C-alpha cells in the first residue's frame, strides 16, 4: 500500500508533447480513475507510472520514493492489460506463479499465494488450463490473479473491461471494486467509459488532450464540473449547452435565441454582460407545471424510451438550439408535441464564453 505522487509529469514523443504537466497526489488505498476520450493520454500516463514509458519531465513517486529511473519490476506495481497479456503457453497456475518464480520465492510460498488468489477469484478449478481454454471473463480474472499474487503497492489497470460484453463488464466492475476494497491496495484505473469511472472511483482525473481538467470525487465532478469539457464528458446523456450572455442586472442569462433564464439571486452580479455558455443537465430540466415561468418551449423531434426514463430530443421554439430532456418513463409524449420546460436556478452551470472555465458561484 502506498501513495503515488505525480509532479508536473510530461511526456513527448519526438517533438510532439502528449502529456502537458500533470500534478496529482493519489492517496494510500485510494481508487483513482483516469478518464477521458480516446487519445487524451490516459494510457501513456499509466504506463509512465508502470515504468513502461520513459518520463520526459517531472517526477513520479511511489510510496515516497522517486521512481523515474526505476525498472518496472522494481517499482512494486502490478498491471492488468486490456487484452490481458496472459502467457498463452503457460497454464493459469504458471501465469500467476511466473513472476514469483523469477523473484525467487520458495515453491511452498508460491503455491500458497497462487492458491489464495485463486480462491479469491474462484479460479481453483481452472488452474491447469491454458488461457485459450478460458472465457473472456475468466481470462480477466487470471490477469487480476497475476496482479494480486505479487502483493504490490499499486494496481494499475488499463481498460481491463473493454473486451467484455456489457453484462460481464458490470459484474467484473463490481468484483474489481470489492477486491480493491478488501485488499486496500492503491489502484490507478484507466477507462474512457464515464459510467465505469463514476462507479469505481474514489476520485477521478478527467483528462483532455494531455491535461488534467479536473481531479475530484465523482459526485463533486458531476455537480461542479470545472470546465465545459468536463461538463460535457461526465454524465449521460451529455449536459445541454446554450450560448448566451449575462444580463445587465446579473440576474439572468439572455440566450442567443431570445429566452431569459433566471439565475439564483445575485450570484453573478459582478459578471454582468459577460459572454457565457449555460449548461443544464437533461435530468435537471423540469416540465413546467401551471405556476412557474417556462424558460423554453421545446419542439420534440425524437423520443427515446429507455424504460425507466425517456429521453426527449428537440429544439427550442422548433428552430433554435438542440436540447435533450430526461423525463420519467411513464410520461406520454410524442414527437411533434411541444413541451414547456423550466431550468431551476440551482441546476444551472455557467462557463466562461471564451475559456470554457466554470464561473465560480
Amino acid at each position, binding site marked *: 500500500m502506498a501513495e503515488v505522487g505525480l509532479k508536473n509529469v510530461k511526456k513527448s514523443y519526438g517533438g510532439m508533447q502528449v502529456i502537458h504537466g500533470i500534478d496529482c497526489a493519489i492517496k494510500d488505498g485510494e481508487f483513482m480513475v483516469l478518464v477521458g476520450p480516446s487519445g487524451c493520454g490516459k494510457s501513456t500516463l499509466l504506463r509512465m507510472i508502470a*515504468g513502461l514509458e520513459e518520463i520526459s519531465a517531472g517526477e513520479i513517486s511511489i510510496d515516497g520514493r522517486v521512481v523515474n529511473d526505476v525498472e518496472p*519490476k522494481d517499482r512494486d506495481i502490478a498491471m492488468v492489460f486490456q487484452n490481458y497479456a496472459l502467457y*498463452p503457453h503457460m497454464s493459469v497456475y504458471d501465469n500467476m506463479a511466473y513472476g514469483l518464480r523469477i523473484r525467487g520465492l520458495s515453491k511452498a510460498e508460491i503455491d500458497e499465494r497462487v492458491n489464495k488468489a485463486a480462491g479469491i477469484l474462484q479460479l481453483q478449478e481452472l488452474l491447469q488450463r491454458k488461457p485459450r481454454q478460458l472465457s473472456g471473463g475468466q481470462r480477466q480474472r487470471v490477469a487480476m490473479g497475476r496482479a494480486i499474487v505479487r502483493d504490490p503497492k499499486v494496481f494499475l489497470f488499463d481498460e481491463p473491461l473493454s473486451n467484455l460484453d456489457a453484462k460481464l463488464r458490470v459484474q467484473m466492475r463490481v468484483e474489481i471494486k470489492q477486491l480493491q476494497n478488501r485488499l486496500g491496495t492503491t489502484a490507478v484505473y484507466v477507462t474512457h467509459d464515464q459510467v465505469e469511472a463514476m462507479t469505481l472511483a474514489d476520485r477521478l482525473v478527467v483528462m483532455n488532450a494531455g491535461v488534467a481538467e479536473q481531479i475530484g470525487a465523482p459526485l463533486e465532478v458531476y455537480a461542479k464540473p470545472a470546465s465545459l469539457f468536463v461538463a460535457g464528458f461526465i454524465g449521460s446523456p451529455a449536459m445541454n449547452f446554450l450560448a448566451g450572455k449575462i444580463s445587465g442586472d446579473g440576474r439572468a442569462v439572455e440566450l442567443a435565441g431570445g429566452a431569459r433564464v433566471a439565475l439564483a439571486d445575485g450570484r453573478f452580479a459582478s459578471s454582468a454582460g459577460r459572454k457565457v455558455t449555460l449548461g443544464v443537465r437533461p435530468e435537471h430540466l423540469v416540465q413546467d407545471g401551471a405556476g412557474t415561468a417556462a424558460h423554453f418551449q421545446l419542439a420534440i423531434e425524437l423520443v427515446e424510451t429507455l424504460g425507466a426514463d425517456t429521453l426527449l430530443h428537440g429544439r427550442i421554439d422548433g428552430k433554435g438550439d438542440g436540447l435533450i430532456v430526461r423525463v420519467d418513463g411513464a410520461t406520454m409524449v410524442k414527437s411533434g408535441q411541444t413541451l414547456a420546460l423550466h431550468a431551476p436556478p440551482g441546476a444551472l452551470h455557467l462557463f466562461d464564453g471564451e475559456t470554457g472555465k466554470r464561473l465560480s458561484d
Partner: protein
Amino acid sequence: MVERRPFSNLLAHLILWAGIIVVVFPVYYTLIASTHNPRDIFNGEIGFLPGGVPTENYKAALFAGAKQVKTTPATVMMLNSLAMALMIAVGKIAISIISAYAVVYFNFFGRMFAFWTIFVTLMLPVEVRIYPTYKVVADLGLLNSYWGLSVPLIASATATLLFRQFFMTIPDELVEASKIDGAGPMRFFWDTVVPLSRTNMAALFVILFIYGWNQYLWPLLITTDATMDTIIVGIRRQIVTSDANTDWHIVMATAVLAMLPPVAVVVFMQRLFVKGLVETEK
C-alpha cells in the same frame, strides 16, 4: 460453396489424377526397379511388378555400394547427409531466431543496417557466391569435413525474416507483462519467445532439413574424399556414361533410400506442427 456440376467435377478429378500419376509414377518405377536383378533392368524386362531380389539389392546398396564403379556404401553416405542436413537445419534455426530476436526487440546502433544486410543476403544463395565461399572454406581447412559442408549454408535470411515476421505478431503487452514480472531479455527469450515459436521451428525444420539433404553442388565441390560423399552426390557417382557399367539396381535402391529420411521427417514433424497450428494462439 461452389455449384456442383458433374462435368466440371469430372474434369477436375481427371486433372488431379493426371498430376498424381506424373508425380507418383517415377517414384513407383524406382521402387519396382530397385527389386529386380541388374540383368533384367539392363534388358528392359522389368515391367510394372516387383522383382524377386529386394533384400539382396538393398543389402548391397547399404553396405557395399556399387561394384563396377567403386562407390561408398549408402549407410556411410546417409550418415554424411544426415549430419549435414541436421547441422544446417538446427544451425539455421538457432542463428535465425537469435538474430530475429535482436532485430525485433533491441534498439541497438546499426539495427536497420543489420536488418537490411540480412535482407540483402536473400539475393546471394550459395550458387552465386560459390567461388569466394569455397576459397574461405578451403583456407579455413574445412574441406572434406562436416563443418565445411554445413557452415556456409547456415546463414539464412529467409528463416530470419520468417521469425522476424512472427515476432512482430507477438503483442507488445506480452513483453511488458514480462518486464513487470521481472523477466529480463534472456528469460523472455527462453520462457516466452521460444515456446511460442515452436510451431514455426517445426515447420522450418522440415523445410531446412530437406533443403540440406538435397544439396548437390556444394558437397560435390568441397568433398574429394569418397567417404565424405552425401547420398545425393553418391547417386550421381554411381551413374556413369556407359549404361553397361552402371549398377542400376544399386542406383535405384540407393535412390529409394535417399527418399526415406525426408519422408520420415515430414511425417514425424507434420504431426507436431499441425498440432501446434491448432493449439497456439497469441
